[in-house]
């Protein structure tokens, strides 16, 4: 088990190093002179200003040195300064991180909290009208553009019914964005859970459990649930990543003051250090999350935890 975790941490580290490398190189994707593009917001930067900026970003170094330069700064927690606000990127990101986390976890709670039971229910009543209805709902949920769903929820709950605020900072204002996020991923999780559960219910060992004369409750909850959970847990990792991506979009629908809104502002101001920091932060979150889920997976599956 410890060896498994150690190995997992090692691959996570490799992942982060590769990500940081890619992020560092992203700046070279910019067509033309990146520094000129960045400074284009100011009125006609002087060559000295350009050179100073270039030096600040380390772009005057050879490519490989640029990376070490970048990495060296990363290790001290320095993600550079926002070009526009000239505040440290890290500070800016950390200010917004709690908001995004709150939103994403609320969305994940909705998605998992409703999606898994619904999927289990549908699998157990496979072929019934309830199953069909749930699966139609699931395909619809997967197909809903979350930004549009957000607008529709605003129309319904805020403007027509007047129950919930459109924007704000308290928990009531989080209900709609969290629902928006949750519904789409709830559908995905319900579908996945259903197919995982259907597969497990078709396994030989479920037949064995029934042949032992165990009541259906024990068959389902002791014998079927855990193996099904194992495959669901693996996809929750991927779903969480996608949910964070969805949060970026949804934040902009609801003017939620999180990383997503910050990112879009950064992009429109061509604030490249901020964008780089944003991507790197997301990569870290996703990698950490996937390590946690793998550990959960190993804990659930004795084939990994027992050697």
């Amino acid at each position, binding site marked *: 088990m410890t*060896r498994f975790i*150690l*190995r997992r941490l*090692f691959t996570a580290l490799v992942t982060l190093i590769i990500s940081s490398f890619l992020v560092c190189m992203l700046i070279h994707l910019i067509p033309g002179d990146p520094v000129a593009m960045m400074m284009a917001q100011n009125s006609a930067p002087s060559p000295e200003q350009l050179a100073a900026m270039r030096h600040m970003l380390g772009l005057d170094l050879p490519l490989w040195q640029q990376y070490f330069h970048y990495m060296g700064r990363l290790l001290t927690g320095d993600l550079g300064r926002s070009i526009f606000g000239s505040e440290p990127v890290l500070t800016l990101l950390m200010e917004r991180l709690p908001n995004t986390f709150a939103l994403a976890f609320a969305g994940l709670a909705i998605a998992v909290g409703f999606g898994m039971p619904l999927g289990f229910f549908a699998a157990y009543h496979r072929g019934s009208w309830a199953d069909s209805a749930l699966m139609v709902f699931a395909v619809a949920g997967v197909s809903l553009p979350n930004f549009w769903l957000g607008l529709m929820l605003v129309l319904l709950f805020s403007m027509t019914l007047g129950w919930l605020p459109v924007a704000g900072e308290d928990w009531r204002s989080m209900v709609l964005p969290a629902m928006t996020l949750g519904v789409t991923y709830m559908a995905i999780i319900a579908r996945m859970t259903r197919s995982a559960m259907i597969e497990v219910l078709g396994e030989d060992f479920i037949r064995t459990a029934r042949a032992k004369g165990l009541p259906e409750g024990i068959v389902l909850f002791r014998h079927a649930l855990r193996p099904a959970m194992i495959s669901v847990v693996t996809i929750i990792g991927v779903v969480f990543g996608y949910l964070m991506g969805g949060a970026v979009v949804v934040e902009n629908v609801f003017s939620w003051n999180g990383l997503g809104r910050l990112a879009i502002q950064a992009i429109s101001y061509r604030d490249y250090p901020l964008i780089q920091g944003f991507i790197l932060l997301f990569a870290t979150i996703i990698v950490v999350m996937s390590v946690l889920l793998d550990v959960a997976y190993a804990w659930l599956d004795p084939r990994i935890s027992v050697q």
Partner: protein
Amino acid sequence: MNAPAPALILDAVSKEFAQRRSLFGRPAAPVRAVDTVSFVVNPGETLGLVGESGCGKSTLARMILRMTRPTTGHVLVEGKRVDALLPSEVLAYRRQIQMIFQDPYASLNPRIRAGDLIGEPMAIHGLARGAELETRVADLAAQVGLSAAMLGRYPHEFSGGQRQRIAIARALAVSPRIIVADEPVSALDVSVRAQVLNLMADLQTSRGLSYVFISHDIGTVAYLSHRVAVMYLGAIVEIGPARDVLRRPRHPYTRLLLEAVPVAHPRLRVRRREVLPGEVPNGVGLGAGCRFAPRCPMAQERCRVEAPTPRAIDGTRLVACHFAEDTPDLPKGLAA
């Protein structure tokens, strides 16, 4: 009369598989799936290859068919080293030797019609084309007992026995001298097996084919084979004329294996027979001694330190056991 040159020769063939190395682990010793196997198969002869799962018989087949390379040793088909063929010689080699696979459901491409499957080898080898190809395919189909009307169907429209007939026709399409058959009937219904076994026997007679017949079912091996080789953990422990080996096994493993075979008639039931204890280990970390020693009821100190080399017994067979002469005979009834 001079003995004809062997059709197939295996000369000390071994295959090692590297163990997957974990990131922080030490490199593990490779697994010897096949260990120094040597035998010859003469023209028109069937060599039966018997062994339990994991004994290396399928890996051996793959090496003979050039699907994987031996780590050491050579396979010679009609006197030519298979691992040293020039690209231009490969097709000619493939015309010498063909294979029948175990699972007729998976070994036929589901999206190709039966007729095209049988005709494909002839097309590849440029043996026939157009109308001639058609007639030859129908001809071959008839030889294995399929009607020409069935050739336009896809594999899933055939029964298991018919599929294996398609596979046999496909193997025969290039008129090979040798056919390696890896468990060709184990996926078939009992009542259909005899059809395929008889077909194989008939084809051997009419075409002078050599067979390497691989099976875990000793009855089927006994039916088709002239000689039998028994494998345990990658090595041949006993090889010789089928009747001798199966009636009076000299290697303790062969004997226990034969004793484990369910009797063919309830009258032959022997209660409390000697059961081969334990299970086949996974082949990792074979010690210095005889590979069968840990499970062998006859094992002595010598067996645990010195690996036996195959030696001639009774003039007709080779046995890899220090105490082959001491192996007790099979109980009456089993050996008929």
